[in-house]
């Protein structure tokens, strides 16, 4: 009986307050917006995007931020911490609509972005946002050129230019 009470109490505690057992503390996460990135102290710089042809993506904002992780403090608390190696990545926030041809749902299977130079280690998604992971030796690039491909065919170019 005592065991059952303890189990029920633990269950209620977990259910009511949540717990950090399911928190992924391994992979880098992306801020949802420039404002959030600034508030958390990860923001580095804002970028403007030039698309050729125009309106490949409905881009809301682009920024560079320090790579950060969720750090589990205890069973009920987590916090965001910057990566220890001072690495950064560029985050591209897009607005996806039912008319958007390039959305996460068909990413990789139908289209893909890749960087044309040798500045990045990966391009993809994190937290639902496009992320361009910069190599450790690269920071604050004044511009970045991304190639949009559909299969092997090049569809367009996305050029990111640092604002400041």
């Amino acid at each position, binding site marked *: 009986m005592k065991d059952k009470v303890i189990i029920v109490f633990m269950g209620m505690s977990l259910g009511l307050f949540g717990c950090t057992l399911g928190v*992924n503390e391994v992979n880098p*996460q992306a801020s949802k917006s420039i404002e959030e990135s600034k508030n958390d102290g990860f923001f580095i710089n804002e970028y403007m995007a030039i698309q050729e042809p125009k309106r490949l993506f409905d881009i809301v904002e682009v920024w560079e931020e320090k790579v950060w992780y969720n750090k589990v403090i205890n069973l009920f608390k987590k916090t965001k911490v910057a990566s220890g190696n001072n690495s950064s990545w560029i985050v591209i926030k897009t607005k996806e609509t039912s008319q958007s041809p390039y959305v996460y749902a068909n990413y990789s*299977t139908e289209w893909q972005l890749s960087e044309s130079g040798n500045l990045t*280690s990966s391009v*993809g998604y994190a937290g639902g946002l496009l992320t361009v992971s910069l190599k450790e030796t690269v920071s604050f690039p004044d511009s970045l050129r991304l190639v949009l491909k559909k299969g092997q065919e090049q569809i367009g170019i996305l050029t990111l230019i640092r604002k400041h």
Partner: protein
Amino acid sequence: MGCNPAMMVDPLGLMGSMVTDLPAIEVIAHRWTQNVGGNFVANGAAFLFEGSAWNAESRSPFDETEDLLDRALEQTTGGGQSSEGHDQDPQSKKKTDPLGLAIVANVSDAVYGKGHSGLLVQKQDGTWQFISKEGRDEDGDGSSNNALSGGPALKAVDVNYKTLSDFFADKNQSRYNRFAMVIISDVNKVETTMRQAANSKYNLICANCGTAVNNTLEVGGVKVGYYITPNSQFSAITSRNVIYWYYER
């Protein structure tokens, strides 16, 4: 695959159980380890051997794994199924058949020692797609969104690496410390399944990062079984299948 915790086992001390393909592992591993040196672990046994251990700075694992892939595919299919353009640049390499490679990437000390796993899938264009299921979106919708019942998952980490070297050189992935390579029957299906699993509802027991990898590998013809934690799943994968390449760092 349904989620029935009653059917699941979470083996402490799984090592060494259910060895079915040891000869194949030994043969392939022997060839591999002769070339590179380092640590090799299979079926619960650790093999240390001489030679310069692989590291991201000193050599590209991609060249070796490409060669390994060709040999493994020849063994698996009886020849003629390996990727086209053997001598070509990996970027221009495109396989016509979907048989290919996946690497289970594991962080053994994550989440209170229960581990974390993600999956690297080599796409038909030769690049590597890394997909990982994240935790529960605590701010997500759903009246029953809590730690007990689970809730919507955070959007997956889903990134493309031009080469395997790029993954290993990426300091942001440096916590991944155990890697096991398996042959999968259909890389396209496996990639799509992993993406769906990684973005579907999160539940600590039934739909976590490890079960996403687990269920996806089953689709690709890899035997895993019912295990809850990523570390126990990783042990099951390495002990129940032919592991074509294993690496710890």
